[in-house]
């Protein structure tokens, strides 16, 4: 708050000079600004966070072990592989496109890896790299189909959905199932490796310090440029909330096994992707192409390259997710990556708040969305409910998420937020 009354700034900062701008100084002002954004249909992550709280309370009231440390650790672990796939879906959705084949690609990549390692006696690393590159290659072909031939993404990814399911069966041959050996590094990484308490708290401290440091740097640079700096009190509050929240989670999960390597990898991918989307030219261009492709092209953006990078990244994430899933389930089978994986990944991205209409969304929606879906699945499992119910509940949640997206889009257009 003190920053805005800074004596050294003779004139009002350029960005708050317009008298029609509703001033958002001080804590009350900040709260009002947030409220106005919400009223204007800029919901962001709010629905999914509320949904997560409601889901937790409902399951907790039915089955208190739902919120036990063990149960939460399981949720994080099981969420991670499909979450990685969902991260790729977020990218295509940002362009207003879709990839229906991520499930099949994940299964095919995992099977290729397993066959290379088990039958062709390649090392695990070689198998994994090959599997991931298969994903990249598939995505590159998709990109060519899209940019050169103009095939709609719905169509070629539907073809991929069928085609790579066939490829999975073909690669597995008459083996049916390939089990990863117990000493397989992948299997151990996905199932048995956890951050030690010390490492977890160090990581937490690094994250909080990085946040505070970057905000302080921003304050300095904005002041120097004569713009209003971020509110220091708010930065402090957010840092305390971040440290407190992560600290509590670390403590609570630590009662059981703690943060799994698998989940840490997933979150790291989400954070890196978020930074790339928000802070790099590439990310800016992804949003631009998703918002108005023609405007992006006329601004000199190589639109084809953006499509290429996104389709390739989506399939790469799908392959990586499939390989991690294989490690977690300890095997690859003919049912690896079938419809369930596919639709869960797509649903997660949408439930997390990424718009189906392109140009809006965040990497974090993959994280939040998949946690919601995994929480539902775990909760229903704990209550011994049949998987038929799970599908129906998941369907209802997805419908709700899409409805929220559509309604907030309407509200936005009537309140001037596009």
């Amino acid at each position, binding site marked *: 708050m003190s920053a805005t009354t800074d004596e050294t700034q003779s004139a009002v900062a350029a960005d708050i000079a317009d008298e029609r701008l509703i001033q958002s100084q001080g804590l009350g002002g900040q709260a009002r600004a947030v409220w106005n954004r919400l009223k204007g249909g800029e919901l962001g992550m709010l629905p999914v966070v509320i949904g997560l709280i409601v889901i937790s309370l409902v399951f907790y009231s039915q089955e208190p072990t739902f919120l036990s440390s063990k149960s939460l650790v399981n949720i994080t672990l099981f969420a991670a592989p499909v979450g990685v796939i969902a991260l790729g879906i977020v990218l295509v959705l940002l362009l207003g496109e879709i990839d229906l084949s991520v499930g099949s690609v994940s299964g095919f990549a995992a099977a290729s890896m397993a066959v290379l390692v088990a039958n062709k006696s390649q090392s695990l690393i070689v198998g994994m790299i090959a599997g991931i590159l298969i994903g990249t290659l598939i995505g590159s072909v998709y990109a060519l189909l899209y940019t050169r031939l103009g095939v709609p993404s719905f169509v070629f990814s539907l073809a991929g959905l069928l085609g790579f399911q066939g490829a999975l069966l073909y690669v597995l041959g008459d083996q049916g199932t390939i089990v990863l050996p117990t000493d397989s590094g992948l299997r151990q990484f996905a199932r048995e490796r956890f951050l030690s308490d010390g490492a977890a708290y160090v990581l937490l401290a690094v994250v909080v310090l990085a946040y505070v440091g970057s905000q302080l740097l921003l304050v300095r640079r904005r002041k120097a440029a004569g*713009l209003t700096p971020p509110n220091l009190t708010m930065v402090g509050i957010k840092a305390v909330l971040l440290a407190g929240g992560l600290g509590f989670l670390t403590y609570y999960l630590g009662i059981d096994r703690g943060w799994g390597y698998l989940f840490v990898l997933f979150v790291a991918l989400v954070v890196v992707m978020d930074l790339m989307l928000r802070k790099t030219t590439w990310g800016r261009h992804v949003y631009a192409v998703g918002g108005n492709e023609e405007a*992006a092209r006329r*601004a000199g953006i190589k639109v084809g390259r953006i499509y290429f990078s996104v389709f390739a990244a989506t399939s790469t994430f799908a392959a990586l997710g499939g390989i991690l899933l294989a490690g977690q389930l300890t095997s690859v089978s003919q049912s690896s990556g079938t419809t369930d994986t596919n639709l869960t990944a797509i649903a997660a991205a949408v439930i997390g708040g990424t718009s189906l209409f392109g140009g809006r969304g965040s990497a974090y929606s993959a994280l939040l969305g998949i946690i919601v879906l995994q929480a539902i699945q775990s909760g229903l499992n704990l209550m011994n409910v049949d998987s038929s119910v799970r599908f129906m509940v998941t369907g209802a949640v997805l419908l709700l998420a899409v409805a929220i997206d559509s309604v907030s889009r309407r509200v936005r257009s009537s309140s001037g937020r596009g």
Partner: protein
Amino acid sequence: MSATTTEKPVTGQTVLSLTGINKRFGAVQALTDVHLEVAAGEVVALVGDNGAGKSTLVKVISGVYQPDEGDITFAGRKISVGGPSDAQALGIATVFQDLALCDNLDVVANLFLGQERLLGPVLDEVTMEKEAWRLLRTLSAKIPSVRIPIAGLSGGQRQTVAIARSLVGNPKLVMLDEPTAALGVAQTAEVLNLVERLRETGLGVILISHNMADVQAVADRIVVMRLGRNAAEFRTEETTTEQLVAAITGASDNVVAARASRRAGTTDTTEGAGQ
């Protein structure tokens, strides 16, 4: 993007020269054998009726469309503008008639789209925001915040953003396709001032407008297009509005001329300014 060469254009030297440009869309021959020259430090107005091919010509120069035939010479070199990024690298900045802004991005992001300022590997938001305010102030823009999505701006505010966009970077030629159509009185005056400032700094300017008063106020030369062809060319100081209107409509016995002759006696010359 620093692909532009740094040498200052010499006033009077030809920046852009088009010869024999043809462009067709299916059955429509939008441009037929069009030629056009723009010198550094010169404002050329491009006028003509709706559908005369003005916007199409601008899009050919800016690389949005490829001409079917014809040569484009820019800064003394024959070029082919393969796409908008080529045009941008050459130093051709365009304000399109349909503005071409991304609704989901904020004002700063739109202003610097395709020419983002970087701090190491990441976007330099602070510098871009500061620069955005400077650009908008030079246009007397009335924009409350540069951090709201473009969708939340009025038509004129969007147009101002689109015009400010063309000043980012280091262009040698600026093309403005009906830049003042949605602007208020003060903002229109600022855009006309801006055009004069661009001329003084030695840039070539192509201005498309249906407002004859504006055109006559700032242009050095007026090129009239009709049905996709060059119809006439005037030096502004030697031209009357009637001559312009006659050239645009292609006949002296048209509605506008008829109205003017009915009102003969009054020497009002603003008659042709209507759209």
